[in-house]
């Protein structure tokens, strides 16, 4: 469903991605690991279409289409979801209304009817319970005054409600205690289906104790330097990134 070929990109003239290749098939969960500054978040943002990154070469095909040609909202409407590392606050915008507007915007773009209030309410309550998000937070402004953990749970709730085809989680585990981590992982696991692709960007192996990835990739200096199974993550956990970087350099 996602094919990235030889992608190069820069931020403010500084080259961050230097020929990145990645293939994600429907039903697969890919973990992307790597040291700080390796380009993990850049990759996530480029896939979502954020301004400020210039793609200088290569291509990204998503469901056979040129993803990079699409506007941010068009990508979202076609099923690309990015759970953010730092979810922003939207003061005055009711969390539940936001979710509903979002679902309806996506439905409208697909020529589907808007969601009816009753089934929306039912779903949102059920899913909020699953991600252990206090129902009161549904009535508050989006992320306003939420704790770090609450913001991440809210991201997972949005993901569950929007049912994306390709979900990208950008360091969703950062700053979470073990309970929140487990909830986030449960949320991801619940969404694993044969149709859905997922990219889990993380710095630490610990998230992968709860999410079993099909593939683990190590991103360093703007390209994928090694790919493997879960064992690779465990090896990284035990030995750090240093040895791998040295091997690659050698």
């Amino acid at each position, binding site marked *: 469903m996602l094919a990235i070929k030889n992608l190069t990109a820069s931020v403010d003239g500084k080259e961050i991605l230097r020929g990145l290749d990645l293939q994600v098939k429907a039903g697969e969960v890919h973990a992307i690991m790597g040291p700080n500054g390796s380009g993990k978040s850049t990759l996530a943002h480029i896939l*979502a279409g*954020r301004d400020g990154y210039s793609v200088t070469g290569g291509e990204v095909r998503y469901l056979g289409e040129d993803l990079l040609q699409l506007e941010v909202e068009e990508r*979202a409407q076609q099923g690309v979801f990015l759970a953010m590392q730092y*979810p*922003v606050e*939207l003061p005055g915008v009711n969390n539940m209304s*936001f979710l509903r*507007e979002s679902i309806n*915007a996506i439905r409208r773009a697909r020529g589907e009817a808007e969601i009816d209030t009753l089934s929306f309410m039912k779903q949102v309550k059920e899913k909020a319970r699953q991600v252990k998000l206090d129902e009161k937070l549904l009535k508050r402004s989006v992320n306003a005054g939420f704790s770090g953990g609450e913001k991440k749970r809210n991201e997972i709730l949005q993901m569950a409600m929007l049912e994306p085809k390709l979900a990208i989680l950008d360091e969703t585990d950062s700053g979470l205690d073990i309970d929140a981590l487990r909830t986030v992982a449960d949320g991801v696991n619940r969404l694993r289906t044969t149709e859905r692709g997922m990219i889990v960007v993380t710095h630490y192996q610990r998230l992968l104790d709860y999410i079993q990835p099909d593939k683990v990739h190590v991103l360093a200096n703007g390209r994928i330097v090694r790919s493997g199974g879960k064992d690779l993550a465990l090896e990284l956990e035990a030995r750090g990134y240093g040895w791998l970087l040295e091997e690659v350099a050698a």
Partner: protein
Amino acid sequence: MGQTNSEMEALIAGEYAQGFVTQIDSDTFPPGLDEAVVRAISERKGEPEWMLQKRLEAYRHWLTMDQPDWAAINHPPIDFQQISYYSSPKQSPKLESLDQVDPEILATYEKLGISIEEQKALAGVAVDAVFDSVSVATTFRESLAEAGVIFCAISEALRDYPELVRQYMASVVPHKDNFFAALNSAVFSDGTFVYIPKGVKCPMELSTYFRINEAKTGQFERTLIIAEAGSEVSYLEGCTAPMRDENQLHAAVVELVAMEDAKIKYSTVQNWYPGDHEGKGGIYNFVTKRGDCRGDRSHISWTQVETGSAVTWKYPSCILRGRDSVGEFYSVAVTKGFQQADTGTKMIHIGENSRSTIVSKGISAMQGSNAYRGLVRVAGKAENARNHTRCDSLLIGDRCAAHTFPYIEVKNPTAKVEHEATTSKVSEDQLFYCRQRGLTEEDAVSMIINGFCKEVFQELPMEFAVEAQKLLAVSLEGAVG
């Protein structure tokens, strides 16, 4: 006096010979202002002598005044001799069909969800005889009359209820109040008069909309609302659709009087022509609005949504004279393009235990400049007066400006005055977040802005609030990026 004057006299004489009453609707005075013009206006209206004397007094005083220059606005000087001070209610000719209306306006009506018949009325197209509002207006008048409510044009009131008008007019905004109030007092063309008798709860929201045939009263509007003891009224002013009024200067005066236990709620949605994309043209809106909480426990509430005009200079105020009286001001002011707004309120606490609330939301986009200017004054006798002010500014883009000028004068040690102010920006991060969830940039901005304005929209009557939201979305379209 100069040539203008003799021309004027000739004109008046000529008109008079033909019987001016039937001519009123179609004539327009040549530009210029002097005593003869003031006299002519009064004469056209068939006003009582005392009204003419008041106008002349105001005119003479106006001559001694200078245009105020303290507001945070810039505009070329207004040449008061270039303005025509009396014209038929609507200068633009009646159009035959909607095909003759500017398509840009029609597109906006469409977005606002205004029905075809309403569109015709708003655009100045001759309205079919079956136009719903006509019958609505009739039933409406009948049930008001039953309740004893007077709701008519101020010129009608001067004719039918001269003593009421005489008693209250200029009792809240005297002609000496300010430059534009003096000008209005001299040359006001028409406006609205509302009288709610003792103990009567006005059975419906009063709206200028229902007076559609009289609503286009030109640039110097005068409104007077009197709520007798224990009465209640909600008045809606303006129209949510864009009135492409080409008059350059609007200088209105609105006076509210609330007696014991009376409650007046005054809501405005102003969306006049803001000028073109280069900042040319547009309305200069200089308005004096003031409410007098004359009786104990009286309550006056101003709610305004200001999205139009090139320049807005407006401070709806409350004089809290009665004990336990309450004043409120809820405002959303939007400036984009080259629009400038200097708006706010004055809460003058005189009565014991008087309370006031100010919620001001300023939104600036593109090169817009938005200033909140507010005065809270607590007089020596106002024991336990309370004020809470909340003043928020929202910036969109990096070329706009927001200013806050709070003035607080407290002469009573038991008073409590609170002022909160925030400035925030619609950030790239917020827009990206919303778009990543499938919303377009415009939907995202409108959602964030509606969130920002929620506290004020809640104060508007339901239907108005919905329209105000839509209007805001339309007026900020394309303001981002």
